[in-house]
């Protein structure tokens, strides 16, 4: 099976811009493909970095009969075990997905539609551009990663409820932002989404 890095592949192919007005029309018109499947995987670990946070990233996958496009973006452990924000190397996300996981690890694998895949990919590509151009929005990468995971997951529900949401909004009901330092928020957010969406999780074996 041929495997392509989705961030690089689709950047090169200049993806079509999706405008807000017709985004939901596209999603409503899209029919499930029998030849291609689309997935979003939310992956998180804890107790890896000095502040007890860990790698937390969003992964996108498109699978067809003989090829897979895959890419992940977020925070991962660099060569010196330091947190790095950017496109996650294949060796890192493959290891994360295949090795026996600690009980504290979080993986939520969701089957999504093509329009959802394309919209989320656009979110990831915008962040990839920000890393490349050194135009991150915060001086602290933990804050950028919160924005990334929030934008990517909320993009799924723009037109219809695919994911049982958790409102990460720093409001009165938001215990995650209240009780965690910035670097742990994405992990706790993914853990809560995994709990809320356990029935929608697609195991690796499928």
């Amino acid at each position, binding site marked *: 099976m041929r495997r392509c890095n989705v961030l690089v592949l689709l950047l090169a192919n200049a993806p079509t811009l999706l405008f807000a007005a017709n985004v939901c029309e596209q999603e409503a018109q899209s029919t499930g493909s029998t030849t291609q499947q689309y997935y979003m995987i939310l992956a998180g670990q804890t107790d890896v970095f000095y502040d007890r946070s860990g790698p937390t990233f969003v992964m996108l996958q498109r699978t067809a009969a003989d090829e897979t496009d895959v890419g992940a973006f977020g925070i991962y452990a660099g060569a010196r075990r330091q947190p790095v924000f950017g496109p996650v190397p294949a060796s890192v996300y493959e290891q994360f997905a295949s090795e026996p996981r600690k009980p504290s690890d979080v993986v939520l694998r969701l089957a999504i539609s093509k329009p959802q895949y394309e919209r989320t990919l656009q979110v990831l590509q*915008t962040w990839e*551009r*920000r890393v490349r151009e050194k*135009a991150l*929005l*915060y001086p602290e990468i933990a*804050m950028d990663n*919160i*924005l990334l995971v*929030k934008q990517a997951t909320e993009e799924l529900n723009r037109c219809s409820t695919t994911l049982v949401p958790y409102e990460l*909004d*720093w*409001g009165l009901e938001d215990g995650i932002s209240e009780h965690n330092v910035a670097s742990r928020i994405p992990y706790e957010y993914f853990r809560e989404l995994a709990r809320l969406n356990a029935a929608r999780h697609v195991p690796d074996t499928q």
Partner: protein
Amino acid sequence: MATRIKRRELFSSFAGIGASPAGAQVCTGADLIPNVPLRTHDGAAVRFYDDLVKGRQVIINMMYAHCEAFCPAITSRLVEIHQALAPRMGRDLFMYSITLKPEQDDPAALEAFAKMHGALLPGWTFLTGAAYDIDTLRFALFRHDHIKFDLDPDSHTGKLRIINDAINRWTHVAPLASKMTVLQHISWADPPKSFEQRVEENRRLQLAIDKEHELYGYRKIV
């Protein structure tokens, strides 16, 4: 017999206090201000830092043409500020109003907004651009470092960023504070004044304070 007093220093190392860490560098405008491509209300293509900010004293705010909450009031206040500083505007002081909604506000929409508010004035430029670049600029200049507020673009209309790039001095003020407060904050980023100028300004200020005490019995305005 005189007692000899033993004196001990409370602080042992004056040399280290206030010193920058070894090797630390001071960030300047070129490091901090994104040089993003933008378009002015009259359609000119510009680079934000290189063409508009470099070496200048500037006043920057964010707005959008269809904003019905604070933007019209803030723009009216900026017109007053412009009038108060008219001799300097376009010479050593510049105003930039950047749209928060570039997808709605093209140069023509910004020009119409400026015209409607009497803001087509020398040294005052309205700016639009790609959403990506506007976000980069918005976070670099107006970030609250709190995601809830930073995700709400409206929260960035209530601030004036004042930068004097030539002397690397930054400050900010709420545009709906009193006109005098806004002018005072702008003056904090003015080019350094000579000793004689400062003595003269202080003399005039003291006269004004004394006059208010005479009139009202307390310091009222200045």
